[in-house]
């Protein structure tokens, strides 16, 4: 009886340890060995590692973080931070929050960039950061390390497909964003892709939202209610003078909402919506 209880207890204890095991794919990075203790952070204590910035990560369905130091034969150190989010789109969201507007993107994983000697990249549901240590690792070696980490997550990782819908004309480079929740300050309008545009002396945002039709209708109706617009929802493009957001154009089609925000004259760009 006592043994059984111990076994049950051991099962639970080992279960909780297993849940926090460092993924095997990151234990064998060729030419590098793990140095020192690995740190694990969950939604509950991410704050301890990145303070107030944790709110932003949690906003993109952050799951967990491993912070692990690696050492090569020359004794040089790198720190790997693996932020895992609930989906590739959510990881894309936090990655693009931190990607500078003007940077040279690198072909690491789905996409990456270099900043202050550190590498940041996206690979599936991981947002990965590699920091240089002391003594410093040369840039070539840190890039090679990052590529090995990326390859261990996915081969041929790509950016989310939804962004291919946006027209090229006037599209601002590296302005793609994923808005995880409450887009336009509207509760439940979650998971919207946006891209900035500069056309005809105007700067504005195009957005697209793909969901089941019931949810799309619910979002549209909620917005109508906010504006006190009483007409029945139809498949068409609407333009409203929103008291909070200014002029807004919204196009509803079965299972999809797209629109134009921040333009003084959104009607002039409706043709862009039709291309989406």
């Amino acid at each position, binding site marked *: 009886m006592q043994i059984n*209880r111990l076994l049950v*207890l051991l099962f*639970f204890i080992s279960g909780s340890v297993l849940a926090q095991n460092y993924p095997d794919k990151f234990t064998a990075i060729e030419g590098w060995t793990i140095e020192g203790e690995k740190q694990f952070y969950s939604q509950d*204590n991410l704050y301890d590692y990145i*303070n*107030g910035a944790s709110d932003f990560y949690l906003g993109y369905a952050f799951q967990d973080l491993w912070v692990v130091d690696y050492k090569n034969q020359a004794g040089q150190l790198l720190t790997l931070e693996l932020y895992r989010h609930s989906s590739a789109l959510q990881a894309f969201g936090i990655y693009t929050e931190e990607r500078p*507007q003007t940077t040279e993107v690198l072909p690491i994983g789905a996409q990456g960039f270099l900043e202050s000697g550190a590498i940041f990249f996206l690979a599936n549901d991981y947002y990965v950061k590699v920091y240089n240590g002391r003594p410093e690792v040369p840039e070539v070696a840190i890039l090679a390390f990052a590529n090995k980490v990326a390859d261990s997550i996915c081969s041929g990782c790509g950016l989310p497909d939804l962004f291919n819908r946006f027209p090229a004309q006037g599209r601002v480079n590296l302005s793609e964003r994923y808005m995880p929740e409450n887009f336009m*300050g509207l*509760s439940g309008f979650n998971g919207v892709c946006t891209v900035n545009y500069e056309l005809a002396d105007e700067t504005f945002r195009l957005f697209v939202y793909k969901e089941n039709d019931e949810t799309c209708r619910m979002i549209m109706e909620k917005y109508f209610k906010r504006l006190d617009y009483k007409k029945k929802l139809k498949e068409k493009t609407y333009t409203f003078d929103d008291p909070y957001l200014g002029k807004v154009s919204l196009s509803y089609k079965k299972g999809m909402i797209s629109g134009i925000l921040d333009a003084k004259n959104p009607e002039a760009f409706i043709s862009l919506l039709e291309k989406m």
Partner: protein
Amino acid sequence: MNQTNKNNRRHFLKMTAAGLAGATLLPQTVEAKSKKNNKVIYRTLGRTGVKLPIVSMGAMKDAAMVKAGLTKGVKHFDTAHVYQKGKNEEMLGEALKGQDLSQLFTVTKVVPDDMDRQTGLVGDGCTAENFLKMFDISLERLQVKSVDLLYVHAVSSRQAVLHPEVIKAVKKAKEQGKCKWLGVSTHKNEPEVIRAAIEAGIYDVVLTAYNFKQDHVEELNKAIEEGAAQGIGFVAMKIMAGGFLDKDKTKPVNTRAAFKWAMQNEHVCTCIPSFTTIDQLEESWSLMEKMKLTKDEQKDLEMARDYAGLYCNACNQCDGQCQNDLPIPELMRSYMYTYGYREMGKAKTLLADLGLGNDPCSDCNECTVTCVKNFAVGEKVQSISRLMDVPDDFIV
């Protein structure tokens, strides 16, 4: 590129001129507005003399919410150098472009270099030069030449507040006219930080975590009172206590009650909830009409406090601390089932699954488990383990 720079420069000059004028204009103008609109409660931010609506906004992720806040009458939008690796400041700078900054209260926050997040101690690697460099970058992102208030960000120890390099940096920023007032922000050890800010004598504002759920709220209230007596203004953050009582987000905090509770403290000038919807903004704004907590709201807060006292959020930081290798988070969960939800059957099933005896601590003289929430873990384990002696027939 040149064109952009020119535009930026022009924008800088315009904003700086407006900012300087605002040093004297803001209190009077805002007050005049408050007379026009009696639904808005304004309070003075300590010795700065600036009057702000008690509702401000923090960490907006999208310019749309800043736009909505401006339309509503929000005067203060919080941001920080580190948020979104600077994108938050950039977004705010863009969103406020063209606004009359003399009517707003602009801030940013900079974290001192080499600050240990666990201990809150600032190391030798911290230099005033680096701090000021980061602050300059923040100003550039915000597209301004100066802000009203510069905070030292996320400090949690007296040593950090009084660190010579930090003091040197913020004093210099003020001397250079890049900010009018100085402050500290704190999420941890708030009373210690507030008292250190008083001691330093140079800080005008403290941005502090403040909510009904904090275990040390009595001590925090005392520290706030001491600070207010010395002319320090207070801004509250985290007033919604995370928005939910449980990890799975099934038990929401009564946000109306949480807001009213925090703003009942007259020493707190304003708060910076992170509104993500216009409805949330509207609701908080409308609360200014009736700030008194209703009986139901008081009851909700009491229940939430009790719940928080029972709730283990399974941070697992106590892993391996128990000499008998007991699964402490699970045992704390069963304690919550019993004393929180009155679900003794569920608790006993969990205990049985864990194979817990009726006296698992009998061979220990002292409990070796230290809980980050200061739970008396040993006492709770002993208390809950007694449930194993209760016959099933007696458990409803």
